[in-house]
């Protein structure tokens, strides 16, 4: 069940991505409507993070392309926000919470310009939205995992974009915070923003997402929640990897070069 849409905000066309030659995403082909809260579901190693990274141009695809707002990525970078996985950075970095959130404004500022009062106010506003105002001056090394996660979300909010890509933003976040942030995200989609969230908990996914993408090395489903969530598709997503696909991946890895690259 893969539902394509007219005038998509994000269009992924036959995207294949490989790490060390072996494909971790096969022929992903999907399109997303505007203003939806979209969940990306799948088991560990299904390629969820890779999909986000490929959309953002952080990994090179070996085939296919991505178009955002019907344009190439480089033309619309300032309309996209990104929340990377918490583990992707060293939290011993000497910076305060406010410093990190202000980083979200750097893209708009451009080279050489320093952030000023306006940027600081924006960062404070974003901190308030995630309930972290009290921590603005705190050093990031002193935060708990859930607090770090909220700082990253605030930083993405400070980017003031139309499309948000979030990689496991709820890992290590307590239930109350998760609910609060989900509510915040829902408000944002009502303002017309589109939010993609890599998520691992099916139960809360059912509760909040409007559109669901299911991945398991290949695209199992993409469509409105009511249409894609059924036993058969869940089994296809979580019921183990396709044996044959694993064998094909092994075969490709054994080549001396990447045969899938054009």
């Amino acid at each position, binding site marked *: 069940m893969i539902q394509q849409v007219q005038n998509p905000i994000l269009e992924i066309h036959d995207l294949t991505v490989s790490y060390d030659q072996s494909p971790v995403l096969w022929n992903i082909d999907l399109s997303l409507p505007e203003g939806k809260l979209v969940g990306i579901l799948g088991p560990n190693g299904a390629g969820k993070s890779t999909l986000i*990274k490929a959309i*953002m*141009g*952080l990994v090179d695809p070996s085939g296919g392309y991505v178009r955002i707002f019907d344009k190439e990525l*480089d033309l619309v*970078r*300032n309309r*996209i926000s*990104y929340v*990377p996985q*918490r*583990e*992707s*950075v*060293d*939290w011993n*970095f*000497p*910076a*305060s919470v406010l*410093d*990190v959130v202000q*980083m979200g404004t*750097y*893209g708009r*500022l451009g*080279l*050489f*310009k*320093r*952030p000023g009062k306006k940027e600081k106010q924006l960062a404070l506003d974003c901190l308030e939205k995630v309930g972290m105002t009290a921590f603005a001056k*705190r*050093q990031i*090394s*002193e*935060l*708990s*995992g*859930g607090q*770090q996660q909220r700082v990253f979300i605030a*930083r993405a909010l400070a*980017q003031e974009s139309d499309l948000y890509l979030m990689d496991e933003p709820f890992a*290590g976040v307590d239930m109350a915070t998760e609910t609060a942030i989900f509510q915040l995200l829902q408000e944002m989609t009502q303002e017309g923003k589109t939010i993609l969230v890599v998520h691992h908990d099916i139960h809360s996914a059912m509760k909040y997402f409007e559109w669901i993408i299911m991945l398991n090395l290949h695209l199992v489903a993409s469509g409105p929640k009511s249409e894609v969530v059924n036993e058969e598709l869940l089994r296809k997503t979580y019921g183990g990897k396709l044996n044959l696909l694993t064998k094909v991946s092994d075969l490709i890895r054994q080549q001396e070069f990447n045969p899938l690259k054009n």
Partner: protein
Amino acid sequence: MMSFDQNAFLIIFTASLIAISCGLLGVFMMLRKMSMTGDAISHAVLPGIVIGFFISGSQRGVEVIVGAGLLGIIATMVIDFLRKKAKVQLDASIGITFTLLFAIGIILINLLAYKVDLDQECVLYGEIAYLPIDLWITKAGFSMGPRITWLALLNLLLVITFILLLFKELKLTSFDEGFGLVMGIPAGGINLALMSMVSYTTVSSFEAVGAILVVALLVVPPATAFLWTKNIKSLIQLTVLIGIGISIIGYYMAFWLDSSIAGMIVSVAGLVFLVSAVFNSKKYKFKSGTRLEPEALSS
């Protein structure tokens, strides 16, 4: 005799200038976890220095700076090539690249020993002690003071300009390179610019402290300051202070023991580092702070 004469002041002043330049760049090298790449670059510029020296016939030539700058960039590119094309892991790529380039430099010094007035020991350990007699004489015959001090001053000005201009970008790409890339910040270019500044600083300082000890100044003051602070601005300030402090103490210690000044500055830096590490180690630390959740500790 421990006296505060003009020579002592000049040597300490110059050493501080160099220590500050190196420390400022070193802060970002450390935050990027690229201290060993900095080490590799400072070894790898040697053949560039020797070739530049051979072409220009003196240490003063622009050729020396250009040669070393080029080698620094070549070294980063070779490390990258080994890692990406030949698929050698990063630390081994660094090890292979700098040992090879450094070995070529030593061979060149020995081959050209009779043609260039370049002393193996000077390049390696530097001799800041002779600084007051190496003067910059203008064409009119007017003495402007020690040449190396002027070089160090110019170097520091350029380093400060570089960091002031790109502070926000350097900070962001050191913390979260991926996020910078996503926002369209040219992380690769900024990285290359930083590496070029490190190679230029190495060349500019090698006469005084030697190519190898530049590494110590790049690495030790920032690492020491990092143990004391969690804020980037105070990290930078503290690095500068430590740079000046070790220059002063190092000079007088060397004077007292009649040994290499550059070596002593580094030894003092090492001692300060060790004391800081013991004082701030997890075992002996009783400073207040929020308790971390277990998951935060594991990441």
